[in-house]
């Protein structure tokens, strides 16, 4: 049976068909849908882990017990998971163990653009790279077979245009793993990485790489397509799809396995084709390796961009140079008003960041929807580096500034981000006598990636009730003495609390309450009125409410006067169907012209 599946759904399906029984991940665009899909397979114990490092540890533990296991993450998640990953390359596996790492060329929704193929070379493990959903499913299954055949973790590289593209996939039945479950204490020397054992495994890795290189030459998804004998392209994944689209008549060497490289196959391709071009996204990964083998590459990164994503026309333009005909420009798209993402109407983050802006705080920010507070009109967030970085940075800034920094510094991060990487730095702030304030925006979910559960929501990936982390007792146990709760929708009180805590010469944590994500269906928030409306008799058109950047509030030009004769250039209007009634705008209005509706 054939079905249209998204790349991520196809990876999940492939894992299911391969007999996987344990899967763990932390959500991250563009990989989040894999586990969401896994949740529907009853044979797989799927779970959200607090971060990618834990996910890899969970899956590898399952593998050592003999299960086929999967861990999934976005490219930056691999930085977090690198510690266990780099050493698991030494220990090898028992049940097939596959790590999906999904890149985001063009940084559609990430804090950097890194090329995950480098991990394969770095750790000396094989990597497969599918180019569409059909390959996602097939390659996932093959990855488990390779993992068991060569006793190694296997990387499966996704990327935005593969993970989030749909294509036809042939579905087959699930095959249970042939590896027997069980833990054998006699295998300890394989899994205890103390120097004497490491040296043994270190040699094993090199032998394994030699065997994998030989396997790459016969791997069924490293495919040569000889058409035009003049020009040939070496490519993999999405880059192959784009190149094939742009130059269907050229010869191709399509690599399904991007590490290690099939040296004999590459040599054969260079013999059969006169000019060989390497088309790859981001780093010159294949090119560097192929040039190092001594081949004369006709074109590579000398013409193909080494940043952002490729597309059929970028490849065509790069290779055709002046022969490429640019399509007609009818309208300059730069003249059109952009539509950047924004916090939802009623979002608790907007209220909190409005308070921070009014206080003039320097806000060390983090990864989540609240990163949008960087943008105008709020402009109230001043750093974003990686998951959990805000807390350590705020503490460090305080150490540097001394008393000068009191009253000015805070760290802001979401509940899921706090559990991912925020516990250690709060502990550090207390232990080393820092004074910074950490604000946990508890919106009861992992918002930005699409409302995933986590250890603080009280539910598992599969929707079963579970333990719910109590942030208050948690940070208390870390040594925090000043713990406050604020309802971010009460601006005056929120500002007072934040001011007090930022001025205090001691570590503090503020937890927001009554602030579930606006898209959250399960959690209830307490808004008194169903919506707010503008009294156009009173509105002076001062635009203060527009500084909130609420999508429900708009500016209407209409020169005239208020009822009491004050001149104005326009009024604001609140879209009733969009307004959830949070009342933030009514609190910032200086002329009492925004009133509760009924």
């Amino acid at each position, binding site marked *: 049976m054939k079905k249209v599946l998204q790349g991520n759904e196809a990876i999940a399906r492939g894992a299911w068909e391969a007999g996987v029984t344990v899967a763990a991940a932390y959500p991250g*665009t563009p990989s989040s849908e894999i586990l969401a899909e896994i949740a529907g397979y009853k044979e797989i114990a799927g779970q959200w882990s607090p971060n990618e490092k834990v996910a890899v540890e969970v899956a590898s533990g399952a593998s050592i017990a003999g299960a086929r296991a999967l861990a999934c993450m976005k490219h930056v998640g691999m930085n977090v998971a690198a510690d266990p990953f780099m050493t698991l390359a030494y220990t090898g596996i028992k049940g097939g163990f596959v790590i999906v790492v999904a890149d985001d060329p063009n940084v*559609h929704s990430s804090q950097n653009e890194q090329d995950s193929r480098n991990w394969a070379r770095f750790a000396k493990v094989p990597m497969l790279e599918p180019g569409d959903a059909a390959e996602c499913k097939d390659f996932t299954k093959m990855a488990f077979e390779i993992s068991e055949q060569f006793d190694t973790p296997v990387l499966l590289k996704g990327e935005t245009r593969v993970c989030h*593209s749909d*294509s036809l996939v042939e579905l087959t039945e699930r095959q249970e793993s042939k590896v027997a479950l069980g833990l054998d204490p006699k295998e300890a020397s394989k899994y205890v990485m103390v120097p004497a054992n490491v040296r043994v495994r270190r040699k094993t890795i090199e032998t394994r790489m030699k065997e994998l290189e030989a396997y790459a030459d016969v791997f069924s998804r490293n495919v040569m397509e000889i058409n035009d004998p003049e020009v040939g392209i070496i490519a993999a994944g999405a880059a*192959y*799809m784009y190149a*094939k689209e742009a130059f269907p008549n050229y010869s191709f060497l399509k690599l399904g396995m991007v590490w290690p490289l099939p040296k004999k196959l590459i040599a054969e391709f260079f013999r059969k084709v006169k000019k060989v071009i390497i088309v790859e996204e981001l780093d010159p990964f294949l090119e560097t390796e192929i040039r190092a083998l001594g081949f004369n590459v006709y074109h590579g990164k000398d013409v193909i961009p080494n940043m952002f994503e490729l597309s059929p026309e970028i490849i065509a333009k790069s290779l055709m140079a002046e022969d490429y005909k*640019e399509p007609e420009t009818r309208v300059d798209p730069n003249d059109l008003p952009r539509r950047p993402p924004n916090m939802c109407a009623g979002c608790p983050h907007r209220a909190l960041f409005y308070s921070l802006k009014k206080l003039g705080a320097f806000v060390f920010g983090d990864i989540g929807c609240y990163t949008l507070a960087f943008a105008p009109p709020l402009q109230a967030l001043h750093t974003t580096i990686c998951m959990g970085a805000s807390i350590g940075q705020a503490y460090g800034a305080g150490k540097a500034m001394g008393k000068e920094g009191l009253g000015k510094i805070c760290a802001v991060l979401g509940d899921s981000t706090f559990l991912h990487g925020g516990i250690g730095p709060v502990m550090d702030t207390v232990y080393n006598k820092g004074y910074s304030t950490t604000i946990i925006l508890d919106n009861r979910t992992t918002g930005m990636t699409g409302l995933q559960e986590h250890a603080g929501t009280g539910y598992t990936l599969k929707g079963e009730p579970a333990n719910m982390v109590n942030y208050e007792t948690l940070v208390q146990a870390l040594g925090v003495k000043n713990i406050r709760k604020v309802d971010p929708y009460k601006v005056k009180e929120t500002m007072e609390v934040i001011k007090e805590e930022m001025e205090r010469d001691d570590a503090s944590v503020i937890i927001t309450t009554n602030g579930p994500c606006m898209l959250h269906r399960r959690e209830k928030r307490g808004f008194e009125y169903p919506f707010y409306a503008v009294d156009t008799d009173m509105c002076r058109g001062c635009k203060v409410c527009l500084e909130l950047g609420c999508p429900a509030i*708009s*500016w209407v030009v209409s020169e005239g006067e208020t009822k009491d004769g004050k001149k104005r250039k326009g009024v604001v209007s609140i879209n009733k169907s969009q307004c959830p009634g949070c009342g933030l705008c009514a609190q910032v209005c200086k002329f009492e012209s925004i009133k509760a509706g009924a």
Partner: protein
Amino acid sequence: MENNKVTNILLSGVGGQGAILASNILAHVFVEAGYDVKKSEVHGMAQRGGDVTTHFRYGKKVYSPLIPYGGVDFLLAFELVEALRYINHCKPEARIVMNDQKILPPAVNLGLAEYPEGIPATFRQYFKENVHVVKGQEIALSLGNAQAANVVLVGAFSNFFPEIARDLWIGALMDLLPKKIHDLNIKAFDKGKETL
């Protein structure tokens, strides 16, 4: 390569307008009609009020999930400025259905930018009679639910594919939508189909 002609459809709109459902309907229909299909959309931050585009392609064998720039055969736009944003992506002979709806971008809301006027006329200047403006909201409201505007537009758009029987479109609606809104959406599809 004429023997592997790939047809390119671009869907554009604003998050929440139902463009994703429309692209799922297209995928369903063209797979049933025996084609290879690929579609691609950017997720993540798009659900926070940003613009949403889906590249949809069908043919005997489709490689790239992305439509080459300037290669759009058919544009289905759910919002006017989101139509205009992709005018350069269209082939000169492209055929276009656009929803007669304005959703003001933030900068316009704040009075910092102007919403471009006369968007259908701009399109007609280049694409003449191949431009169709459909009152999606108005028609859907007349059927009792503005939410069905996306299916009204799909109905109008279906006229570009006379080789695809109505049954296939209706079958896609039935498979993809909950039963209690089948009648509404079948009506919305047919009303939309009548507009061209």
